C-alpha cells in the first residue's frame, strides 16, 4: 500500500475487509449431524411408545443385522458422494458377487477360494464403474443405474432364481456370532466407521476428497490426482459391496439373485439422512453412522409395532426427501 500512499493523486483506497465469520456456536450446532442425532433420539422415544416390545437392546442389535450390511456400504458411498460422484450399483454388486461366491462354492471351490472370487468380482465391478466415470467421463449417476441393472441381470443369468445354499456351518450365521451382546456384523460396522472416519478426517486423501467434491476443476489445478482417487473410490465401493454380499450370504446361509434388491435406496437414504451434501464436498462418516442407527430404529420400531409395510415405504420416501431438503437448507445457510 505504501506505493500508493506516497502517491500525489492518491485515490481513496477501500480496504475490502472479509465478511465476519459465522459465530462458533453456529458452526458447531447448526450441522446436519446434529439434526440426525435429534431425529435418532425422537425416533427411539416414539418407537418405545409405539410398542412395548421395542425397548430391548438385544432385539434392536439383532434386528440391526438386517440393515447393517447396507450401512457398511453406505459408509463408502458417503465418501463417494462427498467426492461429487454417486454409486447406485452396490446392492446389485452385492447380489452378483454373492451369487459368484455361491456358484464357485457349488462348483467345488473351497470357501476361501469362493470368497476370493467374490472379492475379485467386487474389485472388477467397481473398476468397471470407475472406468466409465473417470476414463469415459460419463456421469456416475446414469452409469451406475446402467450397471445396477446389468449386475443384477448377470446375477440372474448366473444363478437363475435358484437359491444356492449348503455352505459349511462355520461360514453360516455371522450375525449370530456375538461379542458380548454385540453381533459381529455390528462390530464390523463400528470398526469400519472408525477407520473410514479417520481416513476422511485426518489423512491427506480424505482432505483431497473433500477438495475434489468442493470443486473438481480447482482440485485438478491444485495438482490433485482426481481421476486416480475417484477410480479408487469406485473400486473401494465395489470391494465393500462384495464383502457386504458375503456377509449376507453368511447371515442367510444361502444366496439368490434378488438378494439386497432395492438396497440402493436404503443406502442413499442412510447417506442423505446422515447429512451428506448431495452435490459433494460436505458430509461426514459420523452422520452416516448415526443415520444407520436412525434407520434401524425406525424400521425395527415400525415392524415390531406391526405397522403395515405401506406406511413404512411411505415414511422412507418422505424421510429421504425431507432429509435432503433439510441438509440443503442448512448448507445454504453456511454458504457464502
Amino acid at each position, binding site marked *: 500500500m505504501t506505493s500508493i500512499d506516497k502517491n500525489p493523486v492518491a485515490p481513496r483506497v477501500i480496504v475490502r475487509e472479509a465478511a465476519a465469520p459465522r459465530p462458533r456456536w453456529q458452526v458447531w450446532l447448526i450441522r446436519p449431524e446434529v439434526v440426525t442425532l435429534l431425529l435418532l433420539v425422537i425416533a427411539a422415544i416414539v418407537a418405545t411408545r409405539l410398542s412395548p416390545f421395542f425397548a430391548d437392546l438385544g432385539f434392536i442389535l439383532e434386528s440391526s443385522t438386517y440393515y447393517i450390511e447396507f450401512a457398511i456400504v453406505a459408509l463408502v458411498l458417503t465418501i463417494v458422494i462427498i467426492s461429487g460422484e454417486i454409486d447406485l450399483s452396490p446392492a446389485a454388486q452385492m447380489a452378483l458377487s454373492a451369487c459368484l461366491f455361491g456358484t464357485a462354492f457349488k462348483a467345488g471351490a473351497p470357501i476361501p477360494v469362493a470368497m476370493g472370487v467374490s472379492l475379485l468380482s467386487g474389485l472388477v465391478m467397481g473398476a468397471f464403474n470407475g472406468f466409465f466415470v473417470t476414463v469415459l467421463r460419463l456421469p456416475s449417476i446414469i452409469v451406475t443405474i446402467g450397471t445396477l441393472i446389468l449386475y443384477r441381470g448377470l446375477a440372474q443369468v448366473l444363478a437363475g432364481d435358484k437359491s444356492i445354499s449348503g455352505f459349511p456351518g462355520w461360514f453360516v450365521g455371522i450375525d449370530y456370532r456375538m461379542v458380548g451382546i454385540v453381533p459381529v456384523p455390528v462390530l464390523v460396522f463400528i470398526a469400519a466407521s472408525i477407520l473410514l472416519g479417520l481416513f476422511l478426517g485426518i489423512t491427506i486423501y480424505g482432505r483431497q476428497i473433500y477438495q475434489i467434491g468442493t470443486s473438481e476443476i480447482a482440485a485438478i489445478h491444485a495438482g490433485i490426482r482426481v481421476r486416480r482417487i475417484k477410480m479408487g473410490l469406485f473400486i473401494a465401493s465395489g470391494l465393500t459391496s462384495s464383502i457386504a454380499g458375503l456377509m449376507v450370504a453368511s447371515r442367510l446361509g444361502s444366496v439368490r439373485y434378488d438378494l439386497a434388491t432395492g438396497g440402493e435406496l436404503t443406502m442413499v437414504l442412510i447417506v442423505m439422512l446422515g447429512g451428506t451434501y448431495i452435490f459433494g464436498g460436505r458430509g461426514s462418516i459420523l452422520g452416516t453412522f448415526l443415520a444407520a442407527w436412525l434407520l434401524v430404529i425406525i424400521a425395527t420400531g415400525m415392524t415390531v409395532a406391526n405397522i403395515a409395510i*405401506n406406511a413404512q415405504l411411505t415414511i422412507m420416501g418422505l424421510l429421504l426427501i425431507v432429509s435432503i431438503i433439510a441438509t440443503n437448507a442448512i448448507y445454504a445457510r453456511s454458504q457464502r
Partner: protein
Amino acid sequence: MSEIARLFRAREAGILVMLVLFVAVVSLIQPRFFSTETLRIVLLAVPLILVAAMGQMMVLVARHVDLSIGSILGFSAIAAGMVFRDHPELPLFVGFAVGVLSGAALGFVNGLVVTVFKLPSIIVTLGTLSLYRGLLFILSGSKQIDPNDIPEPLIRMAQTSPIDIPWIVIIAFGVAFATWLFLTYSQIGRQIYAIGSNPVAAPLRGIRVMPVTILVFTLSGALAGLAGLIYAARFGYVNPGITGVGFEFTVIAAVVIGGVSINGGVGSVLGTVLGVLLLGSVQVALPILGVSGFWQNAIYGGIILIALVIDRTVRQGGLRGLLARGGA
C-alpha cells in the same frame, strides 16, 4: 423444423441402423421372427413404454430425470381401476381422467420439490419412487384390481379398433405425434430444449425455468398415468405390488437408446420412437429366440451403457454429472 431435422438426423440414422441390424440378425437366426405376427406382437408391446418414454424424454431434455414413473404408473392404474371397480356405472373416460390426472398430480409434486428446493431430480424421484408406491398400497388397501373389474371396452382397446389396429397402439403413436408437435412448434417446447441446453443462460434469456420445469414433470406424470391405463387394458388387471415395478429402468433405457442426451438439450421424438421400437423388438425377440428371460435385465443394462458410450462419442460436450441437474 428443417432445423430440427438437421440437428438430429445423424442420431436417428444411427438408431435406425441399429434397429434394422437387430431385426436382420434375429431374423437370420430365427426366420420366424420376420413376420407380420411378430410385428403385431411388437406393436402391442411398445405402447406402454412409448407413452411413458415421451414424458421421460422431455424430462431428460430439460436436464432432469424421473425415476418415479413406475410408481406413478402403478398409482394411476390403481386409482383408475378403483373407479372402474367401485363405480361401474360411470363412463370409461372418467376412469381415464382419474388415471391421467392423478399421474399429473404426482408428477407436479416431483417438479415442485425439484424446483422449489433446487434439489437433484434423481434423488427426489428416487424418494418419490418409494413414497408413491407406499401411497398406492395405502390407496388400494393392498387389494388387486381383478380382471372382471376392468371394463370390457378398456380391455378391447388393447385388441381392436375400427381400423383393426388396437386402440392403445393408435393412442401411443398419437401421443408421440402430439409430443413432436408440442416440442417442435410451441414456444414452451423450444424453451424446454433451451433450459436443458444451458440452464444458467435460460433465466437470463427471460425463460421462466421453474414453471416450465414443473410442467415437464407434470406431463411426464400424466403420461405415466396414461401408461397405467394402457397397462390395465393390456394385462387386464392391476396389482399394487407388481404393476410398474422396475418400469422406470425400461423406459430410461428406451429413451437413452433413442439418442436423448442425459446432458439435456438433445433428443427427438423420432429417435425416442425408434429407441422404443428397438427395445420392444428385443423384448419380443428373446422368447422367440428361446433365450432365457433371465437375460433380459443384463441385456437392458448392457444396452444402456452402450447407448451412453455412443452418446459420449457422438457429442464431445463436457459431460457433467446428473447430480448437477436441478440443483444450483
